[in-house]
């Protein structure tokens, strides 16, 4: 059976989780607690030597990049297609997934790491945190964790991240005014990717994303939230982080 190593249904972990649920593919779930640094422990490093989450093991194939992993799931398994049949829509889906992954998500996650991830671990003894950093295989992840643990994000870089989140929110709202879904007329991996990035935007960025300023984003998020696969996936969450999705209940509108 396919094995998925993941954290909460959120960001990169949530992408393959929701994709598998949409396809109806059963999987063996291996929950790793990001805040306990499970992803840097020797057992997991045998699966993914880079120590990043998620990772998927299917037969002899080991997949560690979350967005290409979604395309693999769609290509490999039966179930409803999650890539549009139209080549232009497939291109648009991929363009937007890269826009989310490389531009929108890094800014949003910098804010998230500064206000949530860092404070969640910062109270631990300095020596324990330094030892945790020393176990991280990738230099880029060591830098990220150090910044979060020791509150080293500068005011300027956080301001720039907030500026970009505002900019991207506006760009997405405009896009959803032209297209029903991210790719166009078809629900696709682009929406799964975007939902994992943005499902908590109305809570984390209430001044930027709300029913008055971004009604199309709000409606798009609610439509995805109401899909059975989304409900099923977010039930796999173990912390209050996953509870945030309930803000999308229409009763809250």
């Amino acid at each position, binding site marked *: 059976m396919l094995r998925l190593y993941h954290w909460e249904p959120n960001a990169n972990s949530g992408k393959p989780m929701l994709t598998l649920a949409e396809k109806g593919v059963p999987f063996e779930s291996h929950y790793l607690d990001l805040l306990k640094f499970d992803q840097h422990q020797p057992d997991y490093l045998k699966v993914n030597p880079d120590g990043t989450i998620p990772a998927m093991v299917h037969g002899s194939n080991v997949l560690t990049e979350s967005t290409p992993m979604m395309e693999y799931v769609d290509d490999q398994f039966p179930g409803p297609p999650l890539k549009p049949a139209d080549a232009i829509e497939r291109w648009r889906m991929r363009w937007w997934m890269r826009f989310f992954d490389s531009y929108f998500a890094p800014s949003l996650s910098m804010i998230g790491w500064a206000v949530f991830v860092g404070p969640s671990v910062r109270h631990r003894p300095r020596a324990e945190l330094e030892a945790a950093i020393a176990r991280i295989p990738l230099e880029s992840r060591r830098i990220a964790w150090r910044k979060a643990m020791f509150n080293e994000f500068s005011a300027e*870089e956080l301001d720039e991240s907030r500026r970009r989140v505002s900019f991207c929110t506006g760009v997405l709202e405009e896009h959803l005014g032209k297209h029903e879904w991210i790719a166009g007329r078809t629900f696709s991996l682009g929406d799964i990717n975007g939902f994992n990035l943005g499902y908590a935007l109305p809570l984390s960025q209430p001044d930027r994303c709300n029913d008055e300023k971004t009604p199309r984003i709000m409606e798009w998020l609610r439509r995805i939230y109401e899909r059975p696969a989304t409900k099923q996936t977010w039930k796999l969450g173990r912390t209050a982080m996953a509870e945030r999705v309930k803000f999308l209940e229409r009763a809250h509108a």
Partner: protein
Amino acid sequence: MLELWTSEPNTFFLKPLIALHEKRAAFTARWMDTDALAHFSVDHGGETEATLHLEREGPLLNHDGTWISGSSFMLEYLAEVLPGEDLLPSGAIDRYEAHASAQFLGAHLGALVPILGCVKYLAPRLAAHDRADLERRLLTVQPLERRNSWLALIDGTYTPQILATARERLKHPVARVESRLARAEWLAGPRYSIADIDAFAMLRVIPDLAPELVNAAATPRLCAWLARIESRPAVAAALATTRSGNPAQHFVPGVEPSRWG
């Protein structure tokens, strides 16, 4: 109707040109002098994807009225829709390898190679332009960091330390490609594909920009792979579209380096 807004066949611009020649596709080339910032004046009707540019700069394709941007995804689009030589990896895991390769190399080579290339070749040419005129034409460019990448070249922001760091960080993607080529002849699956074209367009200039990193002694497999691709008639045809005669000396600012440090 297939129209490609292109420039000197190097890095991002080289990718779709190779695919179009591999496919023997009929297309109309629209030339943009990127040194003169002509690519900011293409009338694409304000399409979001064409305005924002995933890689900050690069080719634009108009296919029957739809604007396609982003050189890797443009390459995949051409491979999907055009008849002719099959450039798509055939199995699900091979396609995963192609996507993962393009994502990883896009972030690393896409950011680092243009820094070295622009500082070595573009910045001296920009210095010959009228600075006030360049700045005026950059005023309306969005997003902001796309504008800033050009201003940084005009201002000489790139210190020797930044360039040394860029060279140091190139080691990781170069080693990854060399390692892959120790296990397989091509980057995704058992035959030449879009993954090879995508990587080739960025890697072929490193022997010039950072010869200590890519050479016959340090990276023999990568060098042999570059030579295999270089010898393909479609690649020669794509490179022959140059107007300067030195396409490998023409760069545009590329993907933004990670803001996380």
